[in-house]
């Protein structure tokens, strides 16, 4: 069977466009990585803050990573007190007193991105504070109003409201998080590199699905258009094995697309800012935005990477099999691709909850992990609760389509 599958790949990659599209996937991923790692960071200080300079993100991220990494260690009251003291010092320096920056006043750090580092870190300090506040339950929780006020102190009020949206259920969330935190030792470290990788990794979008569909749109129809079906059907291996090989080829190609994306992201991140530790708990910090607030500290980066990988693989494989199935049904490359374009693009504009069943919406994987309508269901020890249903549905459908193709190709046998 392996030889048959390889022969299908040979057919696929005999077309220069196939190679080209794989290169496009790599370029697209690189472009997205570049956009994340080299996003513009604003140097700002003062109260109200003023933008004084725009800097290349990677310089800032590297510096910020070093700053935060110095606090590495078990999360404790002492560590929290040290961060908070530094934090207040910096706030006093940059925000409250609106003092102009003077490098001499800041020991240890003297790079060009210095101001950006501090303003960036402390601009996001609320998130650190929130998490650490939960860790140290005796530090006193804040009411919604207090939180809003506290956030609004650094951000404008609308932004603050968005930031603390999930805090409407703050006491409940806090209680649950606290119980989780108390049960294990949390190692604090800079999660900036991890957040950047996750952010880049999570950029897979509808273009990838469209490319995959395009590559596979003539998987079955090419045998009809080239008249090869007669030769295949009358051979000992026949369409039965050929169809199976085609299905495996489609699945394999989905894995290749995923692997290209993942490898590109990982290599790019290793080049720019290597991940420190996959076993760290997810935490937004230092301007490396990764809006996972509702479950920060609940899952490690390794867990989330596995979750995202699973999600992407289910999306890509089911998409590949759906394309193969349509190619088999229609025996027409353009028709197949047209249908797949509609299937991929239409749900982007759909607002109904059911649109989440489509792969293109499923790719927004992390959104499934957020709290919806103040419901805390995702915290009930089963944060992947909803997406599991979609995964199961598509796995069953993928197997079903494969079986249907296999079953129907036996019809030519003479009784």
């Amino acid at each position: 069977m392996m030889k048959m599958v390889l022969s299908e790949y040979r057919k696929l990659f005999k077309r220069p466009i196939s190679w080209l599209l794989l290169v496009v996937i790599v370029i697209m991923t690189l472009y997205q990585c570049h956009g994340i790692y080299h996003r513009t960071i604003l140097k700002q200080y003062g109260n109200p803050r003023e933008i004084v300079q725009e800097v290349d993100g990677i310089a800032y991220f590297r510096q910020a990573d070093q700053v935060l990494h110095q606090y590495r260690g078990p999360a404790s009251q002492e560590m929290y007190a040290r961060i908070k003291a530094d934090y207040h010092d910096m706030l006093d320096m940059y925000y409250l007193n609106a003092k102009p920056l003077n490098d001499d006043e800041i020991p240890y750090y003297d790079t060009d991105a210095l101001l950006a580092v501090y303003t960036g870190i402390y601009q996001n300090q609320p998130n650190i504070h929130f998490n650490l506040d939960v860790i140290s339950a005796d530090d006193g929780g804040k009411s919604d109003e207090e939180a809003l006020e506290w956030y609004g102190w650094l951000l404008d009020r609308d932004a603050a409201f968005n930031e603390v949206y999930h805090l409407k259920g703050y006491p409940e969330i806090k209680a649950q998080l606290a119980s989780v935190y108390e049960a294990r030792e949390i190692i604090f470290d800079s999660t900036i590199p991890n957040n950047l990788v996750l952010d880049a990794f999570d950029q897979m979008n509808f273009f990838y699905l469209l490319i995959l569909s395009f590559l596979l749109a003539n998987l079955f129809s090419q045998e009809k258009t080239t008249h090869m079906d007669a030769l295949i059907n009358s051979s000992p291996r026949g369409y039965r094995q050929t169809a199976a090989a085609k299905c495996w080829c489609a699945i394999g190609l989905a894995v290749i697309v995923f692997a290209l994306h993942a490898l590109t992201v990982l290599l790019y991140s290793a080049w720019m800012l290597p991940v420190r530790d996959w076993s760290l708990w997810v935490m937004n910090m230092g301007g490396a935005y990764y809006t996972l607030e509702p479950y920060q500290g609940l899952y490690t980066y390794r867990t989330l990477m596995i979750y995202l990988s699973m999600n992407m693989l289910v999306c890509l494989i089911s998409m590949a099999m759906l394309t193969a199935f349509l190619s088999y049904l229609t025996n027409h490359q353009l028709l197949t691709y047209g249908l797949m374009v509609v299937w991929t693009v239409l749900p982007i504009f759909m607002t109904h909850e059911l649109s989440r069943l489509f792969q293109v919406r499923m790719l927004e994987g992390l959104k499934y992990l957020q709290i919806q309508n103040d419901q805390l269901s995702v915290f009930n020890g089963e944060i992947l609760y909803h997406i599991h249903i979609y995964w199961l549905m598509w796995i069953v459908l993928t197997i079903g389509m494969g079986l249907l193709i296999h079953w129907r190709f036996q019809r030519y046998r003479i009784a």
Partner: protein
Amino acid sequence: MELRVENLTKTFKKKKAVADMNFVLHPGIYGLLGPNGSGKTTLLRMIAGVEKPDRGTVWFDGFKTGDYYDTFTSQLGYLPQHFGYYPTYTVEQFWQYLALLKNLSKPYATSRINTLLKQLHLEEQRHVKLKKLSGGMRQRVGIGQALLNEPKLLLLDEPTVGLDPQERLTFYQILHELADDCIIFLSTHIVSDLDMLADEILVMKAGRLMFQDTKEALIASVQGHVWEVEAMPELQSQYALSRVQGQTLRLVSSQCPAPGARLVTPDLNDFYLYYFQKEA
């Protein structure tokens, strides 16, 4: 070894393409003759397992082909009327793929490919893409793929289309070499092919088998119906012309077509014209 076809029937919409076909073939070369739309291609496709029949059974070597499909197809060589190929494959790559489909071991496939490249005079085209080959060369590639597994049953649908006279002779020679141990069943419009090749000919008309007999017997059946006569314009529209040689017309007719017409010894072309003059 025999190929037995029993009650094979296929209907497309309301038209019976093949109706209750029954015949038995043994090793040798068999021609399948008939006008366009007579069901030749459908018959071959059903035997090859490419087309599903409405009813009927095909036995090969004592077994129902449907029950032992893998065994049957491993002994089958099939050249469809519209020979399919992947344009970007080279000759060698294409045959390698077909060898894979035919479940041939790699050493055996390599040896067969080398042999066929030589036999079919395609050595120089070994690494040439199929889309760059002439029609005749491509047809030879098609014949080659059918012969890859040294088949015991060879179904050839219009195999000589596009071949030049030299290529045709080579093809005849190859088939003659195979015929001792192989059932070769070929459909063609080119009567001279059957003249040169066929031990027996099956004649189809409107999906039905009209004759199955030796070439000599078929020719004998039109003895007394083939005439030569001096060219006259009105004869050309009234009778089916077998050929024109200078001022002499050769035509088929049950009756003497004109005063002075003389009976001549018929050939296979005359037989075909006699029975299919309406279609011709």
